[in-house]
């Protein structure tokens, strides 16, 4: 894989950002977009636009076909068994809300327990919290170990006879820890527990195989996968999607509407109410093709090299403290610098053209546990190079200099 040529596919790197070459280390937040994706959106609106699934005119039929093509590409990309197991949403957040809400309506009873982890992003906690209020369910937290991982043993320890759902991240957006989803699912299923995976960080960085992982639901964020914003994917096993009630009501999701009764459409329409993010869905096909062209194995290898290199570099930098040391990790390096608040770090790094994220990264539970209000996070994508991490390290040194540190 030639990184120089991949980087050239992303127009943003031709721009000067405040007179600097962009060192973009915020892909866990959202990735940059390759030209094929940007062009596809433009082309669709310019030459092919129509709403999908409603009218019989030429453009509507063509757009519907394109829309459905992306669904087929996603199915193939994540190796789902059935095309109708792919539901488009406005993001991973909506996908997780859909799952929590509908499982809450149909499946959970008062006193039932949902097991999540201390690593979860707020979007895999708050939707369950709603049920804590409305359904009087209980939420348990699997705890991190010293390396800031969640182990299979810890999950096993936290399962009780009331555990109905395990909802966990595939890859932590703070420490990069990869959770043993396949093993957790096997254990959960042996006890009749449903498994929901927040795959936001898994999808851009790992090879996905739904049939192998065997989880019941998997939420994907397209804007972190070199795709457009406003789009997510919910994978759900067919038997579950068929059983669950619709999440939103409106056009497109119905079968028959009468004054005294309404029946709902088949999968996946049942879960795609209203006009969807048509252009984004159609352009997302290009993101998948882009990733397939590079090859996920190459992505994994390239990013593993970057993370290893970055980790060594930052470990050598005194006063930088890396957060967590998971054995199995990808994509992300979070750290603190002694005596300098992450927001000051991010502002100073930005001046050198190095874009990172500072804050709690929507993981307040984890930061509270670590007893830090915030951290700095550098995260990588296919376009990053070792040179970007050198620049990060230099910018950190500059930051220390401004704060009069050696």
């Amino acid at each position, binding site marked *: 894989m030639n990184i120089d040529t991949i980087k050239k596919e992303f127009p943003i790197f031709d721009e000067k950002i*405040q007179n600097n070459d962009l060192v973009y280390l915020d892909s866990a937040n959202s990735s940059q977009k390759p030209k094929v994706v940007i062009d596809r959106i433009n082309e669709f609106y310019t030459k092919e636009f129509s709403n999908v699934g409603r009218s019989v005119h030429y453009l509507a039929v063509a757009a519907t076909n394109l829309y459905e093509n992306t669904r087929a590409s996603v199915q193939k990309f994540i190796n789902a068994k059935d095309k109708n197991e792919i539901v488009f949403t406005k993001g991973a957040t909506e996908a997780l809300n859909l799952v929590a809400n509908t499982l809450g309506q149909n499946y959970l009873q008062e006193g039932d327990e949902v097991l999540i982890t201390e690593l979860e992003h707020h979007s895999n906690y708050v939707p369950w919290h709603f049920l804590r209020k409305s359904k009087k369910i209980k939420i348990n937290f699997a705890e991190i170990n010293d390396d800031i991982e969640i182990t299979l043993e810890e999950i096993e320890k936290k399962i009780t006879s009331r555990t109905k759902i395990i909802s966990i991240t595939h890859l932590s957006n703070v420490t990069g820890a990869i959770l043993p989803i396949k093993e957790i699912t096997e254990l959960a299923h042996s006890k009749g527990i449903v498994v929901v995976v927040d795959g936001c960080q898994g999808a851009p960085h790992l090879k996905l195989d739904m049939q192998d992982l065997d989880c019941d639901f998997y939420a994907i964020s397209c804007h972190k996968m070199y795709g457009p914003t406003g789009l997510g994917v919910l994978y759900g096993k067919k038997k579950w999607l068929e059983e669950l009630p619709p999440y939103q009501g409106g056009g497109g999701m119905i079968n028959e509407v009468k004054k005294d009764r309404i029946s709902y459409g088949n999968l996946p329409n049942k879960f795609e109410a209203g006009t969807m993010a048509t252009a984004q869905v159609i352009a997302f096909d290009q993101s998948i093709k882009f990733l397939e062209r590079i090859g996920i194995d190459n992505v994994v290898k390239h990013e593993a090299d970057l993370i290893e290199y970055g980790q060594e570099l930052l470990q050598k930098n005194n006063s930088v403290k890396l957060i967590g040391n998971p054995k199995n990790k990808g994509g992300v390096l979070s750290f603190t610098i002694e*005596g*300098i*608040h*992450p*927001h*000051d770090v991010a*502002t*100073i790094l930005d*001046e050198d053209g190095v874009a990172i994220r*500072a*804050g*709690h990264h929507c993981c*307040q539970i984890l*930061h509270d546990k670590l007893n830090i*209000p*915030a951290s700095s996070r550098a995260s990588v994508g296919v376009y990053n190079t070792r040179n970007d991490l050198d620049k990060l390290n230099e910018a950190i040194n500059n930051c220390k200099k*401004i*704060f*009069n540190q050696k």
Partner: protein
Amino acid sequence: MNLKELYQEIILEHGKNPRNLGKTDNFNKDAKGHNPLCGDNVHVYLKLNGQKIVEDISFEGSGCAISMASASIMTDLIKGKNEHEAKEIVEDFLGMIKENPKLNSENLKEDEKTKLMCLSGVKQYPMRVKCATLSWHTLISAIDNTQEEINSEKLD
């Protein structure tokens, strides 16, 4: 953009060794402020005497150098002023951070204005303005006894 203007020595110094950090003994007014974006918290304590003069003022909290320095300098300047003067100074400071080129308050001495102007570098960093203003909004809330936590995201 100029980092040197933002991170002046006086800011770094106040950020590292904030004045009036802690909880005022026998405070009679207080308020909390929170910045949900970065998770920063501040708690401002006031002790007003019978003449409504700020006899003592302090703050608790954690945050970036800008927010700590801002709270530190604020508490230094407000001590000894009466309630009315304090509010006028807050207005003047917020006006300066938002748009005014300088401070106009007649309740601040020239050297106090100079000290406060050290925070003006933040104007060039829109994302950081809230770091500098959170403790000031919280001070107003304490004086007015609104009992409502200040949330930086709900301020304009």
